[in-house]
């Protein structure tokens, strides 16, 4: 579904690689979580695989189409939800979704069917004909999700989708992710919420300083429970380790 091979990305005027030798392979029907601290390289990787950023070297293929060599076909198989919920605010929700559906060549029948389904599911029926600039943060996120799903993409990519959302909206999105995968599609999303990731993901990847540290299969016994500890161990900095040792030492002295 998604193959990332030896991906390197260096920003202009930067001396270090933001993503370095990253390899990932995602299977159909799985929810894949992408974890890492702020600045670890999660968003950069996502922006490379969606075609927003060019990358220095390596290859990214989506459903067999190389994003650099055959970007149109690769993008036709992907739906993307950005982290900043940016949408054309002068359009109404319906106009925006129709605009996206046109770009992805969605038939009128499919679009009507999916549009009604998602608008009802995300409870946007009343707002869908209002200009997006009047939407709340959560409503903008929901219209982004509807637009990303209107062509029923094989790969659904979300960059920190739960940021700033209320509980109910989060539940709706998780439900949608689950349904999407049940149809044989793949969901790839970045998050800081370890609890959520451990509950819904089949596999997770942890990235630190642009390098992939590990890929964890959460169906293997014990991995789900140990995810937080593993993540903290992997992403801990030298200073974190020193601080922890100091705390331990202090506790021993107090106990003595």
């Amino acid at each position, binding site marked *: 579904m998604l193959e990332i091979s030896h991906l390197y990305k260096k920003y*202009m005027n930067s001396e270090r690689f933001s993503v370095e030798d990253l390899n990932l392979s995602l299977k159909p029907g799985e929810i894949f979580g992408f974890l890492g601290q702020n600045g670890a390289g999660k968003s950069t990787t996502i922006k490379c695989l969606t*075609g927003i950023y060019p990358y220095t070297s390596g290859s990214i293929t989506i459903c067999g189409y190389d994003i650099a060599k055959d970007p149109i076909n690769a993008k036709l198989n992907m739906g993307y939800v950005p982290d900043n919920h940016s949408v054309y605010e002068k359009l*109404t929700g319906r106009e925006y979704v129709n605009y996206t559906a046109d770009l992805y060549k969605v*038939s009128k029948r499919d679009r009507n069917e999916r549009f009604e389904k998602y608008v009802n599911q995300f409870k946007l029926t009343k707002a869908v004909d209002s200009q997006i*600039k009047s939407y709340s943060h959560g409503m903008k996120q929901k219209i982004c999700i509807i637009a990303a799903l209107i062509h029923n993409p094989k790969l659904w990519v979300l960059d920190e989708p739960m940021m700033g959302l209320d509980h109910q909206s989060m539940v709706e999105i998780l439900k949608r992710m689950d349904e999407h995968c049940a149809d044989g599609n793949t969901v790839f999303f970045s998050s800081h919420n370890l609890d959520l990731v451990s509950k819904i993901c089949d596999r997770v990847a942890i990235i630190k300083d642009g390098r992939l540290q590990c890929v964890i299969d959460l169906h293997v016994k014990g991995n789900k429970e140990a995810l937080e500890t593993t993540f903290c161990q992997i992403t801990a900095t030298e200073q974190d380790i020193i601080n922890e040792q100091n705390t331990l030492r202090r506790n021993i002295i107090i106990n003595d």
Partner: protein
Amino acid sequence: MNIKTLLKLELKNRMSGNSSKGNSWWKAIFYIIFAAVAVYAIYAVGKLFFEMFAKANIAYEALVILYTVFFLFMTFIGTSSTIKVLYYKGDNEILMRYPVSGDEVFISKTLFLIITQVALTIIIIVPFLFAYGEVVYGKITNIYSMNIDFYNIIPASVFFLIVIPFLLSNILAIPIMHVTNRIRNKFALIIIGLAICVTLMFAAYMLLFDKMVTFMNDKEFSVFDESLVQIIVEVAQYLIPTKYFADILIGHELYIAYPVLVGMSGILLAGTIVVIIKLYPKTLLNNVEVEGSAFRRVTKNRRRPIFMTLLHKEFLQVFRSVNYSFQYFVLACAMPVMVYFCNNITMQLGANQIGEQIALGMTMLVMLIFATVITSFSATSTSREGDNFYHTKVAPVSIRKQLFVKFFMYLIVSVLANGICTGVLIFTKQVEILVGLWLFAVVEAISIGLTLTSMRFDIKRPYFNLSGEGEVVNNNASTTLSVAMGFLVAIVEGVLCMFLSYLAADNFVIPGTDPEFVITQELMYIVCTAFAAIFMIGSILNYSFRLTKTYNKIAK
């Protein structure tokens, strides 16, 4: 202390104060020089203006008209600035998070508004008043003939001219803002209304300018006939309260003028205080900006071809923004009238000074200058995407196609604007039909070139600096660059046309050529067409060269 800091912040924001200390000095010097040049230019124009009216013995009426126009102008500027600075969200939200009181924010912003009003009034009106004094009472340098009282009273007159429009603007701001928000989404109505206003204002300005040009050519005779003089005198009598500004200046009916002005100031001050105490905090909290400006429009799901859907989206993005519509559609609508008047006057000026031969070149120059203004909008085609820029990268449509759609929209507008302009020029017999068609082809070719070059400038260096409404805050460097280039191309092409036509009229022979090379009118057509064609082809090549690669490099 907070007020001083907030005021400094406001001033810095307005003057894009992120420059270094050295740069700030240069900027300050530049502003001073610019202001000095502007003051002198206004003084010179003012002198001509009053001389023209004085010739018909209506200098006082001219002063009343001037005060009226300036009063309306300052009330308009003051109201729009008050709405922007005091009521619209933007930095109000940010400032409210700081440990500063609402009163301090209000006072600092009000002080900023007053400083703006004072600066504008002094720079514009004072040179006019000195020009009036010189025309009516004689040279300023001649101490014996000058009217000391007149010059002494200028500060009082200016004081009222600052205070009254300022207070009036504060009272008008809230109701006007509500009305604006109500009609804000009637986009077609706004565009038509604005186009009519701009056209009328421009027509009035050009008619006055035309009179001044006529007067400049022959200062012996008045440009106003008897009936027009009568109308001006009659109208000036009823221009209240602006008539009283002029009255206190010339010492006419002071027993009415002063009480009226002082009384008005008092009433407006009381009104402003009531508005501020009762309505200011309420209006801020109601968040009228967003609530009032969003609309609901029930449509059906509709499938469009990719090209049409991109074009539809692009059009709505511009059409549903009053700022963009004004910058683009309104100016394009008003362009034919502007070209007609400008061409009329420049032809008259040029023909008088040099000869009939340069008329076509003048027309070309005028059309190209307006075409430059219209096409410069394309210099923000990428920047305008703002936070939505990622859409253009994620969409399964090639970058070339997406950009071509933008270009296509600009092309439609430029073809319509240039076509209507040519039609107007042909219809008013300023040019012949065939010449008009040639003129259209040349101007359109250059417009295409300018559009593509402007788009390329923006792709090379986009500025995603947008306001809360998702619109480009200031015109970026690409706009300045494309306007400068447009003017340069207009001057080269216009001068080529004028110069070659002038030489062709005398069948000028290039010295030392064997056989003789005669400059003919045909040669002028060939050279000008070739220049336009080369510019257009060069622009297309420059635009196309590594377009996708350059676009993909943009990292927002």
